[in-house]
């Protein structure tokens, strides 16, 4: 328990160093755009793949479980939309990104630590925490909502492809289901969660990478810890944010 509080304290101290004004604006903007590519654009493939199949599976399962003739088949579109927007895209995709992006951040910064590159930055008078972690946090917070909107769209598209391919639901039923009782607030809720999760993934992974000491083995351990702790925090904050935003 003491170790947990110790880690929280170290995390807070590190974040105080991270959230300061970048020493060079031009370098920060350059890094930010590089991180958009590394953390966002390079994740498009996996996000697209998972989203399409996730939407398709939700649609097929819903369609097969509608037994009653009193329930219209348009409910398939409705269920896919609600599941994808409220939970699957923001939470499941964030968990996937915790694995992909989180391990990348932790191993990149951890390797810099064990090869003394972070010491080299400090010796030059650079605030290494700000230089290395701040662009990653801001890039994640800005790019992840775009990834999640992309995921929502592909998830719903995946559901439609599955329904038209299997013939379980017609296109018109599916589309009318998607339009039933749509509330814009659900998008706000999903994106709010996404921003929180993006912060958790990038800052926690940055923290574990930055705290690495030792060699290659410790870099691997830091990377694993970053993914595990980020995932646990995403699940916990998902519950808290759902309670706060939907009740």
């Amino acid at each position, binding site marked *: 328990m003491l170790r947990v509080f110790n880690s929280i304290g170290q995390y807070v101290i590190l974040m105080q160093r991270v959230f300061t004004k970048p*020493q060079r604006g031009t*370098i920060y903007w350059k890094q930010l755009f590089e991180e958009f590519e590394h953390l966002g654009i390079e994740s498009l493939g996996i996000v697209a793949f998972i989203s399409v199949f996730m939407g398709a599976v939700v649609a097929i399962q819903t369609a097969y479980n509608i037994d009653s003739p009193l329930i219209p088949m348009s409910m398939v579109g409705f269920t896919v939309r609600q599941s994808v927007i409220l939970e699957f895209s923001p939470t499941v995709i964030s968990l996937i990104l915790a694995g992909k992006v989180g391990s990348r951040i932790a191993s990149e910064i951890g390797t810099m630590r064990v090869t003394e590159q972070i010491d*080299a930055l400090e*010796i030059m*008078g650079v605030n290494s925490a700000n230089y290395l972690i701040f662009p990653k946090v801001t890039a994640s917070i800005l790019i992840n909502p775009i990834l999640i909107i992309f995921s929502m769209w592909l998830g719903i598209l995946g559901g439609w492809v599955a329904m038209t391919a299997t013939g379980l639901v017609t296109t018109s039923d599916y589309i009318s289901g998607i339009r039933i009782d749509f509330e814009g607030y659900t998008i706000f809720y999903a994106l709010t969660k996404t921003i929180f999760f993006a912060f958790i993934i990038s800052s926690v992974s940055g923290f574990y990478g930055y705290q690495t000491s030792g060699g290659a083995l410790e870099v691997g351990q830091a990377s694993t810890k970053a993914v595990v702790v980020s995932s646990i925090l995403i699940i916990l904050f998902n519950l808290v944010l759902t309670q706060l935003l939907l009740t």
Partner: protein
Amino acid sequence: MIEARNIDKYFGDHHVLRDISCEFQKGHTNLIIGQSGSGKTVLVKCLVGLFEVDNGTVIYDGRNFTEMNFENRKKVRQEIGMLFQGGALFDSMNVEENVMFPLNMFTNQSLEEKLDRVNFVLRRVNLENVNYLMPSELSGGMRKRVAIARAIAMNPQYLFCDEPNSGLDPQTSGVIDHLIQEITLEYEITTIVNTHDMNSVLSIGDSVAFIYKGELWWRGNKEEILHTENPELNAFVFGTELTSRLIKT
């Protein structure tokens, strides 16, 4: 000049540095020698502020570095160049970007001025036409030379070298040693080299501090070190198979 006064450093219960006081002169190549684990790397890291000292002070030309806040330390650090054991070049940047990095961070020079400076310091360390190579494409000796070029890009007043010869063959080690000494004399900087290589000691040791079990055990220069009667230092200096065979013959 850099002064270390009564420095103590603990890691938990382990007393790593014990009341170390010494001065490192400007325009000299000051060597810190000792066995592995004797505390010399910890001493260097305490001098540059990578480790906080538990007792004592570090003074850079009259400025008390130990008591400075982060902002003031940052200013002093911009006068420091450091060569790390493995070079510590940034993996994601090519040679030119690595050497240009401190210039980008701390100067308002134009791109042309920065490129001129980069090419000048690369030529100074006898490297040409390597600007676009990545660190992974360089040999050990080239990495060290690029790291020296990066360390001197900002015209430092103080140069720290942590085991500059580790992993290098004796000839390349000699080249790096002489380069460090030439730069020290040319720019009249305070250079501190942490090493356990006796070739370095005998070739560039203007001033030598021997650290033994965390204590400053002996001070002298490259001439005096061969005639000392200090048993621990003699064991360190003449402890290799090569020197014992030479003594026998």
